[in-house]
């Protein structure tokens, strides 16, 4: 379970404003919002990559606000995946295991689960977008985290691959029981995987709830406008 209490993070003109949210264990949470709304910054705060100005972060009831990133047991897949270009696929996946001095037996198993076993000896440079996404996911999952943070994991993929990967993400999340936050600005993507969603704008969480609730019972004009894009044009203009 993830719980944030009135977290404030400031950088330049931008601020996450007293953001409080609770995400249940094993929940697939989609974090929506327009570009620049603070979605990535929020994930980085959860990971410990950004130091909060104030507020607390709890993971499974434990206060991790001042805990180093390496001690939070969070799997993080950043935007564009940030795969280490000087390492092979296998070395990328086993990176965390080697750092922690753990056996690398799980590399093959994780690669097998994600269908990338045949890529293990390849270099990162030659991989397609979908392959890179799976390698980055394997690198995060191999450490068996309790929490998985995905920053726009499928935005660089084509429509067909995106749907396929979303289904796979959901299946893996259910199988491993991971508490997952998936950042996106794509509503179809959100509908296909989300248990609940939250809409962030200018560093403020506008509304949290099931996707249907955000669409049908928006609590503000902004939420209504954002959620009625694409196929949900039945929401009346305000």
């Amino acid at each position, binding site marked *: 379970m993830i719980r944030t209490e009135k977290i404030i993070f400031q950088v330049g003109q931008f601020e996450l404003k007293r953001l409080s949210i609770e995400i249940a264990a094993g929940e697939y949470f989609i974090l929506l919002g327009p570009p620049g709304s603070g979605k990535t910054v929020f994930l980085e705060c959860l*990971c*410990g990559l950004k130091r909060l100005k104030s507020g607390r972060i709890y993971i499974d009831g434990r206060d991790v606000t001042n805990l180093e*990133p390496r001690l939070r047991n*969070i799997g993080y897949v*950043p935007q564009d995946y940030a795969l280490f270009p000087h390492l092979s696929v296998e070395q990328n996946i086993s990176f965390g295991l080697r*750092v922690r001095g753990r056996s690398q037996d799980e590399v093959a198993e994780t690669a097998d689960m994600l269908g990338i076993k045949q890529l293990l000896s390849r270099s990162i440079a030659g991989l397609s977008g979908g392959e890179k996404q799976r390698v980055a996911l394997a690198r995060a999952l191999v*450490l068996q985290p309790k929490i998985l943070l995905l920053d726009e994991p499928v935005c660089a993929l084509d429509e067909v691959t995106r749907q396929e990967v979303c289904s796979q993400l959901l299946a893996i999340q259910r199988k491993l029981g991971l508490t997952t936050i998936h950042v996106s600005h794509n509503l179809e993507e959100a509908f296909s995987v989300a248990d609940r969603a939250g809409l962030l704008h200018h560093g403020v969480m506008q509304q949290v709830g099931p996707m249907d609730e955000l669409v049908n019972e928006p609590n503000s004009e902004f939420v209504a406008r954002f959620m009625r894009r694409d196929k949900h044009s039945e929401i009346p203009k305000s």
Partner: protein
Amino acid sequence: MKTAANTSFGPPGRANDRPVRGWRDRVFSAASFFFVSVFIVFVLVLIVADVLYIDSQAVLTALTSRFVLGALWMSVWTSSLSTLLALLFAVPMGYALSRFRFPGRFLADAVVDLPIVFPPLVVGLTLLVFFSQTALGRWIQDDLGIEFIFQPKGIVLCQFVAAASFAIRSAKTAFDDVDLRFENVALTLGCMQWGSFCRVSLPLARNGIIAGGILTWARAMGLFGPLIIFVGTAGGVRVLSTTIFLEQSVGNLEVALAIALLLILVALIAVTGIRLVGGSAMVKL
């Protein structure tokens, strides 16, 4: 077999990797290549002129002279040591200047470049004044007994001061080019900052650091001005550049040129060797 495609001017890569280009693109490529050709030909002509000027006797004198070989050895080990020292400073300094925000960072950044702007003679003069005229310098020389003036250690110090900026600047640029997200991901995967530096940033910045090392070594190898002032030209502190100066000052121009060609040859071998070891395709100067 040569084809029209592989003999034409154009970007690197296999012929079928290149885009279709019009005549303006070809003119642009040809113009770029023109400047490459002019520069390389000019440098080669200068070297050939030296080669033509000297005779075999001068070469034999240069290659068999105990003094010249001593100076060659002195040049090689001092410039190698000063390069190692420069890299020892350059890697942490380049990383700190690239990654950390601290008061006075812009000033620190500017000070790093100062020795590049200094006339080389000023480096020697400054070192001489420091070690002979200041209390701290005299304490180091006299009380600690670490003598630099007119000593081989002074050569290394001169080379370090005059050339380390190249290594630091290159290292900073190389670390600037490493995306911070790589380090962040490494932190979430279990690294401490030291670990993410060693396992991710340093390997990714490696080519830029090697390039800086090559520049530093080349600068140190050819250094002359500060050495004349700070360490002089006595037998035990003679390097190739000061030996060339001494030979030409007594009228042995042919021997001086032969030594100069030896210096060029050694530098060429070393730079090529480092490039090959570092991965020729990846080292960018």
